[in-house]
């Protein structure tokens, strides 16, 4: 079954400390993985996707096919990183749907 698991509902991190938001997936085939973010009172928006292999706002995520994980990392947390983060996956075919995890709320402590 296709599934995305984000084990932490809430993650509190001090400003300047490293951040790691965990995401594990289950998918038969080669999925596309995404991280979406929703800041307070804003729309859900794409943060990054694994095929881009880019760093957005200091965040990176590496697809580990062996561990079926796509953890989101940032070396030094900033207060503006406080938000809801969703991991999502999709197949590579046009008709494949996107499956979201339940989300992790990241709270940056001053």
């Amino acid at each position, binding site marked *: 079954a296709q599934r*995305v698991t984000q084990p932490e509902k809430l993650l509190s991190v001090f400003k300047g400390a490293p951040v790691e938001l965990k995401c594990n997936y289950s998918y038969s085939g080669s999925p596309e993985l995404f991280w979406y973010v929703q800041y307070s009172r804003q*729309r*859900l*928006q*794409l943060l990054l*996707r694994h095929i881009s292999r880019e760093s957005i706002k200091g965040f990176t995520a590496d697809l580990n096919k062996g561990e079926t994980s796509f953890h989101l990392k940032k070396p030094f947390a900033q207060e503006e990183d406080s938000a809801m983060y*969703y991991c*999502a996956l999709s197949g*590579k075919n*046009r*008709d*494949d*749907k*996107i*499956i*979201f*995890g*339940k*989300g992790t709320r990241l709270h940056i402590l001053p």
Partner: protein
Amino acid sequence: DAGVTQSPTHLIKTRGQQVTLRCSPISGHKSVSWYQQVLGQGPQFIFQYYEKEERGRGNFPDRFSARQFPNYSSELNVNALLLGDSALYLCASSLDSLNTQYFGPGTRLTVL
């Protein structure tokens, strides 16, 4: 461009009623997807439309239906509303069904 727009912003209905939610995609985007987000959960895929054809359907009952118009706007219809249909309904548009999705602000539906 205002981005993806949805109407109404919120709505209160009673059990058994029917509701229609509307979505206007970003100009030039031909694909529209609908999601249901229940409190405390991630968005759950309902439908995807591309060039007015249904390209994907999630695990929702037949009470849920949608369509896409020639101008690429879309409507989501839900019949015989249940209390459990109370949720935020999100619309997302993309250039085609494989591209990055841009989300609207959502319509908050409350069923009493």
